[in-house]
């Protein structure tokens, strides 16, 4: 059985050649970002459920990984909700194991939003 392709949401990744139909569906219809030099990217504008389905039908099984909103690290490994979290349907950022248990995590969470907003 082929290994699942780990795709970090918000990060660039490459794909094998899947044909123009699959490429067109992913990029034009399902909102997958594409750049010739960096590859593909899933972000908040991507229809993740549809894109994962398209890749599966093209023979690429995908494991989505969310990133921590506060530090950008991968947040899924070791998450207690891993088995019950449908990462194709939740929003695209989460909290990593370092930040989630912190007492002041909500303060850091809101602060990150303000910092990003100010650019």
């Amino acid at each position: 059985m082929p290994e699942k392709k780990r795709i970090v949401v918000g990060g660039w990744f490459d794909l094998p050649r899947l044909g123009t139909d699959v490429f067109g569906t992913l990029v034009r219809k399902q909102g997958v970002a594409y750049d010739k030099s960096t590859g593909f990217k899933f972000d908040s504008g991507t229809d993740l459920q549809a894109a994962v389905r398209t890749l599966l039908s093209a023979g690429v099984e995908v494991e989505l990984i969310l990133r921590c909103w506060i530090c950008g690290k991968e947040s899924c490994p070791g998450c207690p909700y891993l088995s019950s979290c449908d990462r194709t349907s939740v929003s695209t950022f989460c909290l990593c194991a370092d930040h989630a248990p912190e007492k002041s995590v909500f303060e850091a969470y809101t602060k990150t939003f303000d910092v990003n907003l100010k650019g």
Partner: protein
Amino acid sequence: MWSEKYRPKKPDQLVGNEESRLMLSLWLSSWKPGTKAALLVGPPGTGKTTFVNVLARANGMNLVDLNASDVRTKDKLQRRMGEAMSTISLFGERSLIFLDEVDGLAGRADIGAVEFIKESVRESQNPIVMAANDPDSDEIKKLSSSCVTLRFRPPPPREVEMYLREVARGEGLAVGEEELRACVLDAAGDVRQAINLLQSTQNATPEGGNDARGHYKDRDRTVSEALNGFFGAADKHEALTALKALSLSPFEKVREVHRSVLKSGLPAPEMAKALEVVSSADLLIGRMMKAGEWRLLRYLDRLLVDGLYPVVRGKAVKYTGQDDLPFPILVRVWNDSKKIREVSVKYAARAHTSGMSARSQDLPYVFALCSKKKFREDLERALGLDADRDLLESYDKFLQKEAAR
């Protein structure tokens, strides 16, 4: 309700959809006439409406909130949106036009509405934000070329847990990991629901415990079966099931609960607590009706179960129907009403007021004054009430009884 107490007040206080919230904030701050509208797409309960409300407030903008399901035709849209689109305040302040549920524009009655919105986006002097639940509807496809589309999704469980911890911290509670996780999982990404579940677990009796969560069937019971099932339920789960089975409008539901509580003969402190909850439920309905916030309806049963059920539990409160006063009391009520009407006519003529004002505003004070001996005779004579001595005496007894309580 904690979900109202901890409702986000600033754009950074929402949970989840970080990129979409950032993009919408940036879109609004850089908006100028001719810019595309923003279209928020996502399932209910993901914070679209809340975020638009908070964002408008944070930017000092007046929010013009329209529900496209209510304003479905081009003419109605033109009437409601026309002025808002072209108006800027004297000081240059803009309004934010929010058109909710645009996927509700469907069918023959909506001919021209989508085209009108597209045209409005091009010409509006104020930013337009739209929201829809179904990204695949034909209307959304037609509108998407005039809009920046932003997806809203349920936040991941860990972020919901973070917010619940924040609520628990605000309430000074030490909530166990397992309890917290159960609330997060049961809420399935709905932060408000998660907060309500947390509140329900904290208000629950040890026996009721986490059984307050569950699924509800059997919606066809009669009013009496359902209400008696609620009052006599063994636990919160059963109480909620019974209440969900009550096929009455929200207003009627609260009215029947109120009636049952009033007739229950609960001791005064418990009666006060019970009526406080009924009052909160009434306020919830009032807000829902006034602001058209129908989504609040889902919290009505939960509010009654969490607030009222622990008070009435095991107290033999019963739903006894509408005309269940004993006949002698009913006769007394009819007789008193008749006499009060007669007295109010006499009083109204002397006091130059209407019979209705006399009954509702003046007579309670007059009767109260009549209970003092030094005023009684003069007042009775002056107002021509001396012929109604028995009525005054019965009111006297009532006042004495109230004073003793």
